[in-house]
């Protein structure tokens, strides 16, 4: 059965979600693929609470925009998704920019809450579709949020994995390095190495990222898409061919 790249990514993210007991996930607005993955995990029966941050109707927060951060400070957010203009081999994120501080060459929008969330959520899944040496660099130009922390710095969690358009990396906070967990259909270990600016570990044979099953695709295109229409109409139209009723 044919599928779109976003569907593979959503299914792959859903597997990472379900790999660890998860009570509560917070998802930002600019993240339709992670949102689809969360809904898929829910529809697959995972008893997880979703807080969709920019949902207009039924927005989960009633204490203002600080509530997400307070909630996370309390240890009530088990999983958050982050990306980055640059991500390096130590899982450092750069959402600031390149060139001299504060981004004299290319300025990214800014750190948002990453310099807090990355420390205080139970775990983080890094997600960036573009997999190129421009994005996945040896050392980020500026660290907006560090991948690991020195002793004496309170840190509740780290990156669980980095999912890109080409592969899945697992992150190992103990050694501060990624290892290649699987390559997506059509990709090779050598191809991934070529397109990645940082060194990573390869432990034995690297499996292929499993393609979505028919069941997974039916859920995505059905009840997952239903849930996402209000917040992500453009994504639903593009990926699932679903249009809002006029």
């Amino acid at each position, binding site marked *: 059965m044919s599928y779109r790249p976003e569907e593979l990514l959503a299914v792959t993210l859903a597997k990472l979600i379900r790999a660890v007991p998860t009570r509560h996930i917070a998802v930002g*607005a*600019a993240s339709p693929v992670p949102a689809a993955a969360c809904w898929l995990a829910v529809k697959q029966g995972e008893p997880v609470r979703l807080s969709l941050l*920019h949902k*207009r*109707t039924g*927005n989960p*927060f*009633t*204490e*203002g*925009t*600080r509530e997400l*951060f*307070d909630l996370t*400070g309390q240890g009530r957010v088990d999983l958050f998704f982050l990306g980055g203009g640059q991500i390096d081999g130590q899982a450092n994120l750069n*959402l*600031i920019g390149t060139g001299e*501080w*504060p*981004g*004299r060459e290319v*300025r990214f*929008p*800014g*750190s*948002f*809450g*990453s*310099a*807090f*969330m*990355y*420390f*205080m959520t139970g775990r983080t899944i890094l997600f960036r579709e573009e997999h190129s040496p421009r994005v996945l660099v040896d050392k980020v130009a*500026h*660290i*907006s*949020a*560090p991948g690991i*922390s*020195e002793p*004496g*710095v*309170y840190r509740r969690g780290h990156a669980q994995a980095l999912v890109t358009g080409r592969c899945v990396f697992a992150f190992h906070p103990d050694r501060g390095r990624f290892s290649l967990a699987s390559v997506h259909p059509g990709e090779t270990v050598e191809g991934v190495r070529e397109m990645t600016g940082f060194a990573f570990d390869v432990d034995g044979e690297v499996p292929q990222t499993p393609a979505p099953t028919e069941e997974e695709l039916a859920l995505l295109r059905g009840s997952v898409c239903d849930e996402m229409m209000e917040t992500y109409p*453009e994504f639903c139209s593009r990926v699932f061919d679903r249009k809002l009723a006029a």
Partner: protein
Amino acid sequence: MTPIDLEAMAASVPDGALIALPPDNSLPSVALAKALIRRGARDLRLVGVPVSGFATDILIGAGCVAAVQTSAVSLGEAGFAPRFTAALKAGKLSITDATCPAIHTMLQAAEKGVPFMPLRGIIGSDILANRPDWKVIQSPFDSGEKIVVLPALHPDIAVFHGVMADSHGNVYVGRRRECGTIAHASRRALVTVERVVEGNFLEDERLAPGTINATYISAFAVAERGARPAALLDDYGFDAAYVAAYARAGKTEAGFAEWCAEHVFEARAVAAE
């Protein structure tokens, strides 16, 4: 308390003021931002609570802004904020990067009248390396923990758009409580509202939880659709087409000037007729 005129409100904002602004998902007063452009405000220092959006970008484009402290500047789905990006590249704008909960924490310190508050995270981020005003201390309760302490942030003026004001100057903002925090933390609060209604929201148990007490409100002005293109709770939605059109126009200085002439100056002239 009676409403004042929107242009008079803009005139009461001095050049150089430190102004706290909520972003596009949280009741920005785009109406007052446009009035500040019309009055030719200069050297404003903006604080994004906790990030910055459309109103910040148009103020920057119009040359009203000297500095921005924020956790991000973005037009959301419409992409990068074009006049912010251009001004930064041209070296015409100073930006102080923060991270969202740090902005909230600095305002909450001001709200509580304490000189600082701690916040976890941040250590190891270059944001900290570029914030000489943020410090790292040993936790007084655990000598093994290093923690960031942030100074209280007292804006001169809080600016936002409420749903409505009552006869006493109480302002209803519903669940957007960050507007309350910036009003509490700021020396003055200038608020635009859709409408003024009779009565006292504080005496209505259903309205009181979403109300900011007039104690914190310095002045309010009526500005219909004053948050537009941002949404106003369930009153009206986000105008994505308007922002997308702005994002295209704002790519060049000339495009911005044209946009500004039409949407900031002409629109007002028409409304005033």
